[in-house]
């Protein structure tokens, strides 16, 4: 026993010089006296309750009696609860691996063979959660009216952030950093938000993500869908080539055969009018004796084609969930319910009825008597009560009335084609209250936008087309040449006038002999924009803006 003791002592003595530093004159082994300083740590692991990152410190001067440093995590400043790792002397940093469980303090302790120093450097740990923020936001404007947006704002949330989020607030602003106006809110867990119909267009939508850790913001640039318009091409007589074209304002491109591409068959022979109402589009194709009901992408929902003798559905007007259609050959007007798509009622009117207009609970229809031209044409406008659906009265106008428009005051404007001879195409007004008829001036085609009546007069045989603009509220002429550049269009080519209800752009369709029709665009001031555009169809005669 004694021998063993002496042997061990001898070994210890000989080993000791290799373990002791030279600074202390104390021959007993002691733990390091000094510790590190300027301990610093930044959590880069954004996960909740997890930390990771570089722990740095300044070394003690001199670094005597130290073998290495040990790093601990603890719940208090002195609790060395979890050992994280160790690093040899001379190093000033240590990588805390990501995913390390969060504890309140990081402790660095120098150590030597005698043990760990009493001198503990401590730094408190702040868990960096990183504010949750949405990714992949997207928005497609479905409101085709320029200056308005609507649709679904979509986004994704990284899985890690999900539980921290408490909600969202949506704003619309003019620039990337504009705070903007609040549109609405979404609950935590939502990945979409419905931008309501009619929201005013702003350049950016901003999604603010709310969480326990604060708010984050992500701005998304918004493109305003400017929509476009459909052009209905009547086609040539008995050539079965009625078709639909679409002009897209965003691309400035015109696509042709829209109906055929959507449905794999022809639209029919001799189309007359297109009406966009609610979620559907209605096209009358009298040559094919049918009324085609389509969705807004031109896919056919139903073809309303009465059996038996052709009725020749011709013109339409919509109001309050019903579409009223004139049947040219059947000399009647029918009421179509837009939900059930069934014809509910029919009322007999004058001969060969054409266009309709609604005012003050009454439906006005022009009885052209067109195919009775041998007997001198028709000359009345029938007035149908919307409730009882019976004819109240007939108002006498100039012969061969075909077109009707109602203004917001309840007056009805009528264009009578006359006899293509001495009685020319003429515009008249029926007073909505007294039913008195006033003859205004010559006009061949008209369109009413925001209480302004735009007309063109281009009767076959005239040397050029003339234009007039009329204020239907004050009942005064505003302009008699609101388009200056239309001399390229001949009256012999059946010109049709349309006006964009939002931008007030002016449009004229022209159907020259033997060729597909042309579309001319004019600025609201009446100057020609660009060149004539080929509509891709024959006898183009009706334009419907897809935000009507």
């Amino acid at each position: 026993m004694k021998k063993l003791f002496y042997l061990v002592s001898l070994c210890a003595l000989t080993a000791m010089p290799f373990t002791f530093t030279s600074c202390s004159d104390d021959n007993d082994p002691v733990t390091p006296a000094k510790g590190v300083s300027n301990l610093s740590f930044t959590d880069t692991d954004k996960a909740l309750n997890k930390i990771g990152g570089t722990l740095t410190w300044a070394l003690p001067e001199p670094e005597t009696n130290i073998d290495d440093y040990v790093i601990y995590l603890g719940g208090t400043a002195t609790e060395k609860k979890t050992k994280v790792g160790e690093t040899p002397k001379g190093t000033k940093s240590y990588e805390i691996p990501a995913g390390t469980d969060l504890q309140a303090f990081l402790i660095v302790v120098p150590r030597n063979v005698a043990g760990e120093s009493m001198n503990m450097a401590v730094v408190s740990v702040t868990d960096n959660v990183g504010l949750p923020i949405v990714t992949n936001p997207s928005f497609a404007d479905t409101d085709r009216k320029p200056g308005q947006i609507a649709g679904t704002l979509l986004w994704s949330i990284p899985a890690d952030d999900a539980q921290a989020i408490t909600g969202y607030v949506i704003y619309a602003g003019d620039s990337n950093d504009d705070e903007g106006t609040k549109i609405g809110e979404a609950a935590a867990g939502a990945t979409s938000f419905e931008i309501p119909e009619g929201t005013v267009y702003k350049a950016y939508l901003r999604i603010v993500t709310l969480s326990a850790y604060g708010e984050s913001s992500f701005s998304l640039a918004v493109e305003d869908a400017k929509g476009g318009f459909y052009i209905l091409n009547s086609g040539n007589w008995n050539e079965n080539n009625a078709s639909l074209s679409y002009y897209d304002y965003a691309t400035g491109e015109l696509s042709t055969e829209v109906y055929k591409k959507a449905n794999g068959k022809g639209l029919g022979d001799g189309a007359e009018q297109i009406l966009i109402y609610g979620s559907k589009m209605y096209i009358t194709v009298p040559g094919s004796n049918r009324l085609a009901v389509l969705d807004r992408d031109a896919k056919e929902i139903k073809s309303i084609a009465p059996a038996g003798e052709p009725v020749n559905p011709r013109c339409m007007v919509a109001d309050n969930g019903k579409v009223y259609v004139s049947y040219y050959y059947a000399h009647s007007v029918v009421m179509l319910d837009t939900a059930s798509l069934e014809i509910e009622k029919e009322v007999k009117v004058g001969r060969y009825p054409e266009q309709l207009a609604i005012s003050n609970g009454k439906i006005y229809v022009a009885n052209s008597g067109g195919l009775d031209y041998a007997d001198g044409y028709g000359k009345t406008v029938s007035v149908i009560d919307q409730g009882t659906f019976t004819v109240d009265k007939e108002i006498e106008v100039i012969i061969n009335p075909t077109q009707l428009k109602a203004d917001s005051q309840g007056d009805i404007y009528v264009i009578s084609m006359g006899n293509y001879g001495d009685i020319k195409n003429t515009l008249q007004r029926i007073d909505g209250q007294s039913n008195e008829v006033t003859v205004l001036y010559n006009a061949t085609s008209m369109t009413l936008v925001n209480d302004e009546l735009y007309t063109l007069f281009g009767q076959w045989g005239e040397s050029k087309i003339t234009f007039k603009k009329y204020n239907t509220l004050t009942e005064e002429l505003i302009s008699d040449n609101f388009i200056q550049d239309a001399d390229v269009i001949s009256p012999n080519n059946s010109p049709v006038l349309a006006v964009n209800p939002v931008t007030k752009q002016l449009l004229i369709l022209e159907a020259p002999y033997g060729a597909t029709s042309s579309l001319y665009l004019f600025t609201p001031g009446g100057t020609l924009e660009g060149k004539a555009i080929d509509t891709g169809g024959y006898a183009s005669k009706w334009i419907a803006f897809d935000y009507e």
Partner: protein
Amino acid sequence: MEDETCMPYLLFYMKGLWPCIFLFSAVYSVAQQRDSITYRELSNVEVVEKVRPSVLREGAPIQFLNQTAFRRLGLQDLSEAIKRFSGVTVKDYGGIGGLKTVSVRSLGAQHTAVSYDGVTITDAQSGQVDISRFTLDNVETVSLSIGQADGIFQTARMYASAGALSITTQTPRFDRKDYVLEGQLKAGSFGMLNPSLRFERKLGKVYAASLHADWLRADGQYPYTFTNGDIVTREKRKNTDIQSLRTELNLFAAWGKRGDLRLKGYWFDSHRGLPGSVILYNDYHKERLRNRNGFVQGVYGNRFSSRLTFKAQGKFDYSRVRYQDFHSKYPDGQQTDVYTQREYYASAALLYTPINNVFFSIAKDAFINTLDATVPKCLFPERFTSLTALALQYKDSRLTATASLLGTFITEAVETGEAAADRKRLSPALSVSYRVWSEQNLRIRASYKDIFRVPTFNDLYYNRIGNKDLDPEKATQYNLGLTWSGAFPAIRLNYLTLTVDGYYNRVDDKIVALPTLFIWKMMNMGKVDIKGIDANLSARFALPSGMFVQTGGSYTWQDAADKTDKDSKIYNHQLPYTPVHTATAFVSWENPWVNVSWLMTAIGARYSLPQNIEANLIKGYVEQQLSFGHVFTFKQSSLRLQAEALNLGDVTYDVIRYYPMPGRSFRGSIHYIF
């Protein structure tokens, strides 16, 4: 806003563009080849009529088919014969009785004159002759001349067109008996039945008479395949029935020195349904048409001396067309329009040969056309036309040179309002045909003709559409060609003929219907440049045992470009319904058992509307026909049996878009001559 183009019947007459409703049952739709060789071969055996055109010799292109060819090739009606010619376009609306018009070298059907035994058939209302009602039963020859034919001893009216289709009927031949009695029964697909009778009788030494009567009926409800985008369906033609009766009486007098006379009385009456064009999603067609046409014509000729011959003609023509449509939209539930036309015609011509090889002719025609119609605002127009033609010709075995001048004067009157202004015009024509070497049968020919057509009554006076200020439509024709014939007995090739013609036509002030959105209007709007090549080949091989094989074909290349308005989208586009390539071919084998003929017509792609875009393109097609026939000869009579299979390949095709033609069909006939 728009007025329905509610006058479908009118539109039938619309110049070329919007033809419409004459459409019915079809059994016959194929075209055949003309055959000049056969004619020559038989000229030694049979007596035929006096004036025979020579396809090789004339200064302007002429094509010819006779009865032997009709029978051999199995041709049933006039349109089938014409489809065998090159340089013509037949606008066929389908079926027996469907409207068929003939346009020569894309000039338009109003530029083609049709003559029946020397007297022109007219329709002053539409300017077009519907050839669907002419069968070939009693027809002897059909010839088509383009430009001015060399036969200068013609009525002045035959000078007045760019192209002339001449039909001559059978003259009686009494071999052994004083009479000939023929009975024929034809039957075919789609309910076609057509019995006919012919009786010819010699009345003494000087007089003879012939009577022909035939009755035709058919349902015409043939099936066809229709494609609408991705949807392909099988449909049936409806409202296509036809019933017609035709009788013709001819009286012949041969007075020797006092000349000879041929009198003809003709009556035609038909009822038919108008199936109309196929309209998507709408197959309501109830239109009916009744045609009644009767005329009396006489031709008197006298050869005063060896140098002077005289010919006079007179005709009275009455035509009544009743169009009906049934629909409750009309005030009485139906619309009835009756159009009555009358023509009074007289012509006198002299042929004078001052010296050998030189011929001079002068012809004067005067005629009155009237139109009564029950349509609104009919102006009851009356037109008086006076034509004078002078022609000078030099003709020897190598050279034929002809110059002619036509003077036209037209004046019109209407009941109310103003009539069109009087018209006066001079129209020259020149042609030359020269045999280059006396040994070789090769000829070069060149011709020029300046001609016009007056606007029709519809063009001028139809309510709201007519335009009385229309100018006549002018056509200038140039032709340069070669004809050659030869034989190669070594390979049993008895005859071989070849004709090739290059041509250029220019049309000015073309009358077109401008379809505006509201109403249509007739205008002098067009200029057209037409270039083309017509080539014809026919050959005949002799085989042992008296058999022979006859074959031939034609090819036409045509470029008919619109030259109206440089800024228009249709400038330089091919005219509608004018194929660039057309070809026909036939092979006939005559043998003692059953004669067999195979016919083919190939029409290239064409456009249905003036604009040459994909949407308007109608694909080309090839149609074939097979016919079989045999004649049994007895002591005093003969029996001919004939059968045809039309559209062998059952090809789905339209000549005019949306007027589908029948698929495969059959017909047969039994003809007994006693």
